C-alpha cells in the first residue's frame, strides 16, 4: 500500500492514558513532506509520550496515528530516522562499528566516508570522542537509510553554537529535500528554526502555528532604567512576572499602566514601553493559563 500524498505523520485526536493519568489528551497534528515541526512544552506536557507514539513505541489508547498514511509498523520504521536525547549510540563500540550496525539493521551498505569532523575518528570508541561529535554521529546514523521522517528529541543539547548551527544546517537540508522533521526542544532559538510549532501543556495541544501565529498581538513591557535591580525587586514585590534581560527588565502579560504604577509606588523613574512579546513569554502565559 503506497500512499505518497498522505502526510508523513497524521495524528487525529490521539490520547494516551497510563492508568488514571492522561499523558496525551486528544492531540491532533501532522507533519508534511519538507516541513520542520517543532514540539514545545513544559515537563510533563506530553511531548515525550507523543514522540513515542509517533515512533511506534507506545500505542494510543484513543484516536488514530498514521505514519506515511499507514498504521505504524515495522515497515514504517524503515523510513524513520530517530535521534534520541541520549543519542542511542554504543559507547563501547567504535564509530565505524556503530555505523556498520545501523547500516546492517536497515539493510544498507556501510557508509564509505564520514563527514568532515568525524573523519579520522572511525576507529575510536564512541564513548571517547566527545559529546559534540557523538551528536553528529547520531545524525549520520539516523540519516544513513534516507528516512522520510526524521524525529529529533532535543537534538542539540550540550553542543556549542557553531556545531549547533551545523546540525541545523543538516536538518534544513533534509527538509529541503523533502524529509519531514519532527523536533522537540526546550529552546526558543531552536523553535525559531522550525516552520511550524505545536505547543503542549498537560497533555493537551494549547497552540499551533508559526512563531508569528502563536505570539499574535501579545505584548510585554520593557523597563529601561539605570537601577535595574531596584526596578526588578519592586516589580517582583508587586507580584508582577518580571524577568531580567541584559540590563533591562521585562514584564510579560501585564498592561503598561500597572508596571508604571508599581515603579511609581517604589519611587523609581524608568523608561517604560510596550514591545512585542517573545515566544518564550507567550508560551509561558499560555502554559499558565492552561
Amino acid at each position, binding site marked *: 500500500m503506497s500512499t505518497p500524498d498522505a502526510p508523513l505523520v497524521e495524528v487525529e485526536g490521539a490520547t494516551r492514558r497510563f492508568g488514571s493519568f492522561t499523558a496525551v489528551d486528544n492531540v491532533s497534528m501532522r507533519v508534511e513532506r*519538507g516541513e520542520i515541526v517543532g514540539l514545545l512544552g513544559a515537563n510533563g506536557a506530553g511531548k515525550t509520550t507523543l514522540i513515542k507514539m509517533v515512533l511506534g513505541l507506545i500505542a494510543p489508547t484513543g484516536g488514530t496515528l498514521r505514519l506515511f498514511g499507514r498504521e505504524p509498523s515495522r515497515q514504517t520504521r524503515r523510513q524513520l530516522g530517530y535521534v534520541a536525547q541520549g543519542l542511542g549510540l554504543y559507547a563501547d563500540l567504535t564509530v565505524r562499528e556503530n555505523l556498520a550496525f545501523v547500516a546492517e539493521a536497515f539493510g544498507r551498505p556501510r557508509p564509505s566516508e564520514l*563527514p568532515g569532523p568525524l573523519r579520522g575518528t572511525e576507529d575510536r570508541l564512541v564513548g571517547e570522542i566527545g559529546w559534540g561529535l557523538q551528536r*553528529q554521529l547520531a545524525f549520520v546514523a539516523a540519516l544513513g537509510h534516507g528516512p522520510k521522517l526524521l524525529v529529533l528529541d532535543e537534538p542539540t543539547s550540550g553542543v556549542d553554537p557553531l556545531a549547533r548551527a551545523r546540525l541545523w544546517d543538516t536538518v534544513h537540508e533534509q*527538509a529541503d529535500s523533502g524529509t519531514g522533521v519532527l523536533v522537540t526542544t526546550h529552546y526558543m532559538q531552536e523553535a525559531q528554526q522550525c516552520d511550524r510549532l505545536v505547543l503542549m501543556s498537560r497533555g493537551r495541544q494549547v497552540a499551533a502555528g508559526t512563531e508569528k501565529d502563536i505570539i499574535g498581538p501579545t505584548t510585554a513591557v520593557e523597563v529601561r532604567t539605570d537601577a535595574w535591580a531596584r526596578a526588578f525587586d519592586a516589580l517582583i514585590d508587586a507580584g508582577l512576572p518580571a524577568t531580567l534581560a541584559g540590563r533591562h527588565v521585562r514584564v510579560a502579560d501585564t498592561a503598561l499602566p500597572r508596571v508604571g504604577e508599581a515603579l511609581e509606588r517604589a519611587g523609581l523613574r524608568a523608561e517604560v514601553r510596550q514591545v512585542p512579546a517573545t515566544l518564550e513569554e507567550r508560551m509561558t502565559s499560555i502554559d499558565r493559563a492552561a
Partner: protein
Amino acid sequence: MSGEWGAYGVTVRFGRTTALDDVTLEVPAGQVTALVGGDGAGKTTLLRTLVGVVPPDSGTISVPALRDIGFMPTASGVWRDLSVDENVDFVAAAYGLRGAELRGRRAELLEAAGLAGVGDRLAGQLSGGMRQKLAFSLAMLHRPTLLVLDEPSTGVDPVSRVDLWRLIARAAADGAAVAMATTYLDEAERAAAVLVLDEGRTLAYGPPEKVTAQAPGTVTVSVAREAARLQGAADRDSRLAGGEANHGGVSVAREAARLQGAADRDSRLAGGEANHGSPTTAAPVDRGYSWRRGHEFHTWHPGPPGPGERPLEPDMEDAVIAAALADRAARAGGGARTGEDREDIADAGPTGRDPNSDNGAVRAEAAGSEGRNA
C-alpha cells in the same frame, strides 16, 4: 576584598590537554555573568577553579571564603532520596543555620521557587525544573556573596526556566555576584556580561551588546528577499485556499514561510530602507562559512564588507558563530578554507537522495520558481 570576584589569566592543564588557556572572567557583584560553550569548552573547569576544587596551573583566582560561595553543580546537587525539607535541613546544618533564621530563609526560598507546598516530597520525585529550583535554593540558602551555577537550566522546560531565571536575577538584584554556565545563547543574551569559551579558549568576552558589536569579519544574509516580498502574500493566499501542493518535494507553504521570514528580517539589515529594490542576493558560495537561520542563509567572511555588500548587524548567535569561524580560520592558517573544516554531515553515506539536494542547487531552483510565479 571588593566585590570584584573572578578568575584572571587562568590556565588549567589536565595531563597533556589544556582545559583552560589564559582565560579571564570577572564576576562583579549585583549582576549575572554567563559562560557559554558546548560540552568540553571548559565552562565547568572554570567554575570549578572559582569554587576552589580545581587549582589553576597559572593565573589568579579572586573569590570570597568558601562559606560565602554558593555552588550548584551540573548534576543539580540535590539528594534525591531526601525530601525537599530534608535537603534544606542538611545544607542548613552544614552551614550552621538554625532556628528562626533557618525558618525564615526556608520559607522565603521555597516560596520564591514555587516549592512551598512540596516540602515532604522526595527530591527524586520532583520534575526536572522543580529539582533545579530546589538545587538553586540550596546554593542560595546561606546567602553567599558569590553564586556559581553550572548549567542550571539544562534539561529544564521553558516555563520552569523562566522561573529559574527570575530566581537567579533576584539573587543578582539582591547583590550577589552570579557566574553561570549555559549552552544556550538566548540565556547568555540576558546576562550583563558573556564569556564565550571554545576548547578552553576565549572566543568573545564582554557585555552582550559589545560581543555582537565586536563580532569579527562580516556577516551577510542571503535569501531571495525581493521575491519574498512579492511572493509571500500570494503564497499565503494560496495556502489559505487549500492549495498546499507540493513543489519539487518542498511544499509551497514552506516556501512562503521561508520567504516571509526573510522579509521580516529585513529590518535588521544595515542600511534598512536603502535596500529596497536591490536584486536577489546570491546563494552562499562557501558552505563552510555559512549557516542556516530558519529560512535564511547567513554567511561570514573575514575583514570588512566588500563593495556593494550589505552586512547584517549580527545578533548574539551570529556573533558567536562568526567568532568561532574566525578562530578556526586563524588556526587553520590565515583564513584560507582548507576543505577539511566543512562540517557537512548530510553527505555521509548513501542517502539515496538527489545529488542536487546541495543547498545552492535547491535554493537556485526555489528562487527560479518564485520568479516564475511572480
